[in-house]
């Protein structure tokens, strides 16, 4: 095998493992909520990274997949009385289906680059409006799951156990990413990102590969939605399908390093940790964290086109997903 593991990957892996273990030993309990949040965003970033990072499909509406997962599991439990674990699997399948549908529709009509970004954003907005309009989805009030702790209900009395649960999901997401990266499917995705016409000429069914990526990304984003739902037992249209969640999905990977395995997690950890510290330092003016996100993004895009992972892997500069006609 000629894919040598870059030592930079090992360094980042160690940093992230240490960070992941902090809540078990030193981190004050007050920070556990933030840590769990970061994990949910990391998982969402891992999902975005499959399509956006490896495949170069810049989705601005990944909340549609996240929200579909969260709403689906909640509705299946509330309205159909289905076991949370089964509901979670079904929710992932439904989110994968939503991803397949959006992908098939967009790629069928050759939408790429900013057009794809806009169509995904539009889908998320449509879902947001729909979710706040029907009684079945809880309307403007959203959906709440009744508290029923216990492993069988995928609800954890201890917040640390809940954290562990989400952490395992993130690890699973990273394992899947690694498998993708080392597979023919992953090689084809990257080829499509770099040059779609050349990929077609070499026998790649680009439509099929891209739709499959959307399905996989949907399943993982759906899992993030499920994790959110089981952690906070509440979702509304703004949380589930709002633009904030769509931006969370892409900020982590872009800042951490799109198209790398660990980038989305590294980005989410750094962004939210530093963001929280900045907020504590300045005092919690609402919206200040968004200003901060914007500044971080500007600096990263200017100086680290490959994200933070670029620092560790050396700058093998990737021309950021050229969209040539």
């Amino acid at each position: 095998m000629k894919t040598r593991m870059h030592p930079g990957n090992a360094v980042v892996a160690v940093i992230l493992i240490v960070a992941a273990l902090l809540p078990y030993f030193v981190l004050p309990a007050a920070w556990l909520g933030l840590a769990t949040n970061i994990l949910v965003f990391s998982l969402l970033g891992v999902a975005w990274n499959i399509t956006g990072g490896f495949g170069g499909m810049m989705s601005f509406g990944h909340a549609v997949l996240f929200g579909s997962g969260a709403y689906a599991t909640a509705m299946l439990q509330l309205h159909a009385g289905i076991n949370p674990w089964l509901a979670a699997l079904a929710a992932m399948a439904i989110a994968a289906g939503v991803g397949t549908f959006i992908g098939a529709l967009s790629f069928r009509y050759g939408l790429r680059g900013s057009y794809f970004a806009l169509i995904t954003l539009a889908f998320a907005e449509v879902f947001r409006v729909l979710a706040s309009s029907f009684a079945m989805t809880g309307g403007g009030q959203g959906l709440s799951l009744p508290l029923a702790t216990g492993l069988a209900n995928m609800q954890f009395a201890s917040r640390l156990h809940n954290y562990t649960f989400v952490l395992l999901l993130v690890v699973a997401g990273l394992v899947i990413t690694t498998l993708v990266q080392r597979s023919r499917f992953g090689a084809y995705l990257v080829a499509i990102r770099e040059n779609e016409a050349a990929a077609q000429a070499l026998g790649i069914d680009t439509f099929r590969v891209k739709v499959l990526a959307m399905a996989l990304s949907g399943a993982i984003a759906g899992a993030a939605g499920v994790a959110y739902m089981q952690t906070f037992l509440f979702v509304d249209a703004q949380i589930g399908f709002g633009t904030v969640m769509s931006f969370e999905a892409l900020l982590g990977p872009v800042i951490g390093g799109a198209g790398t395995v660990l980038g989305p997690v590294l980005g989410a950890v750094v962004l939210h940790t530093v963001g929280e510290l900045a907020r504590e330092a300045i005092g919690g003016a609402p919206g200040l964290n968004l200003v901060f996100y914007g500044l971080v993004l500007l600096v990263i895009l200017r100086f680290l086109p490959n994200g933070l992972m670029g620092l560790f892997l050396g700058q093998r500069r990737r021309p950021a997903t050229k969209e040539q006609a």
Partner: protein
Amino acid sequence: MMLRAEGLGKRFGGVVAVDDASLTVQAGRIVALIGPNGAGKTTLFTMISGFQRPDSGRVHFDGQDITTLAPHTICKLGLTRTFQIVQPFAGLTVRENIAVGTHLHHAKRSAALNAADDIAATLGMSAMLDQPAQNLTVAGRKRLELARALATRPKLLLLDEVMAGLIPSEVAEIIPMIRAIRDKGVTILLIEHVMQAVMSLSDEAYVLAQGKMIAHGTPQEVVGNPAVIEAYLGHGAAQRLQRETQDA
């Protein structure tokens, strides 16, 4: 018959790019497609390889009608094209670039990468395997284009100006490689402006001018054809040339 294109036509708005053009390529041959700039050669290639659908005419490859098939399906059947304007996967290494092609027949990543090494060796690219494609020279990129296409194990290879922009020594290097590819059983249809290559490589040549196929024969026959000379040098050029050679 490896390839048979019959009466292909393509217009872009009011411009007729290709007009009722036909050509056949027999298995095991190297066939050149030449013509002045803007004659429609590349458009003809894009129709044969499935990137554009012809307005009229049919394309048969290896006994099958491929006129309406998608590019990736045509590639899987054994017809692979290269691009005149090279299209490397810029952020990937040379090995990874070629491996995208070898993956067509190797599902496993390691097998595809090993096969890529073998392809690179046959084209004298072993030293560049770990370089990012964007660092390659023009000659390197042209050769990578060839290597990637070859990696899909084509029966018929469509080469679109793989020698354009090369210096004579580089041309002299690539000519025997193309011949070697043919000798291994790959049929070749090439668009080329480098006449040295056309004359020394091809068994026969087609000439396209203003979308129409105006001549077909051995390279020697074709370059002496008055219609071909006029297509390149303008109306009356053939007569003028003849007069001048007589006067001299």
